[in-house]
């Protein structure tokens, strides 16, 4: 296991690359979902306002 983690001495370049990519993957999932959620909340509020106004 330690041998694998060491990546032949390149661990300080290999693992930060994977961590950075993983963080970008997770962050983009979060940002995309939040963007959709905000749009849905806004659309709901607007629909309710229209419903109570009519």
């Amino acid at each position, binding site marked *: 296991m330690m041998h*694998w983690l060491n*990546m*032949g*001495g*390149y661990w300080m*370049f*290999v693992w*930060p*690359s*994977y961590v*950075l*990519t993983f963080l*970008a*993957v997770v*962050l*983009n*999932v979060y*940002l*995309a*979902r939040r*963007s*959709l*959620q*905000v*749009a*849905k909340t*806004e*659309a*709901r509020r*607007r*629909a*309710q306002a229209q*419903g109570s106004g009519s």
Partner: protein
Amino acid sequence: MNWTWFHRFGSPPYFYRVAGKMIPWFAWLAAITAVAGLVGGLGLAPADYQQGEGYRIIFVHVPAAVLSTMAYSVMAVAAGVGLIWRMNVAHAVAASCAAVGAWFTLVALATGSLWGRPMWGTYWAWDPRLTSELVLLFLYLGYMGLRGAIDDTARADRASAVLALVGVINLPIIHYSVDWWNSLHQGHTVLKFGKASMPPSMLVPLLLMMLAFSFYFAAILLVRARGEVLRRERNARWISEAIGA
């Protein structure tokens, strides 16, 4: 050829509904291919005879770089479709590409730097491939900046579409930079005519990771585009039904 599907996708309620159904499929395909690619790339593929274990960075670097140019291609095509056919959904798709593309251009540049330090002895060089990829990042940032600077959505769509189309010139420069100029960056390994210059034990995990990133991009793009469609169609009647309000 039957273009009915094209016109259907131009309908915001249809796009919103179908995109919602497609997202879980793309997400699961991305997860499955990523797990298979990571097991193959980090576990099963042998060490490179020159670069040792350090070459394993390519299993995230190459897919991130492919995603960065793929996102720009999709953005430019969608912007062109929006501009020519005045299709609001196409503009929504184009607008949704930029942020994801910018993030993964940054990832490609950063992981490339981390690969370059042990292999070239430097984190950065003004190499044609690296420089054209950096220009891609600036194109994304410029596109987002331009959109953000114009309040009127229709005007922002048109102006940013023109910028996206002009920026397409950078895509062949990125791809062929390693052929056209003397470059530190290695030449084409996968996307070249004829036989790939990699053994299958390395090539298969790399292709799986490229597939995973492509599915991932499709899923993220559709999530963002649905939000963008909702914002643009905020006064439409179909919205209440679609969001269950």
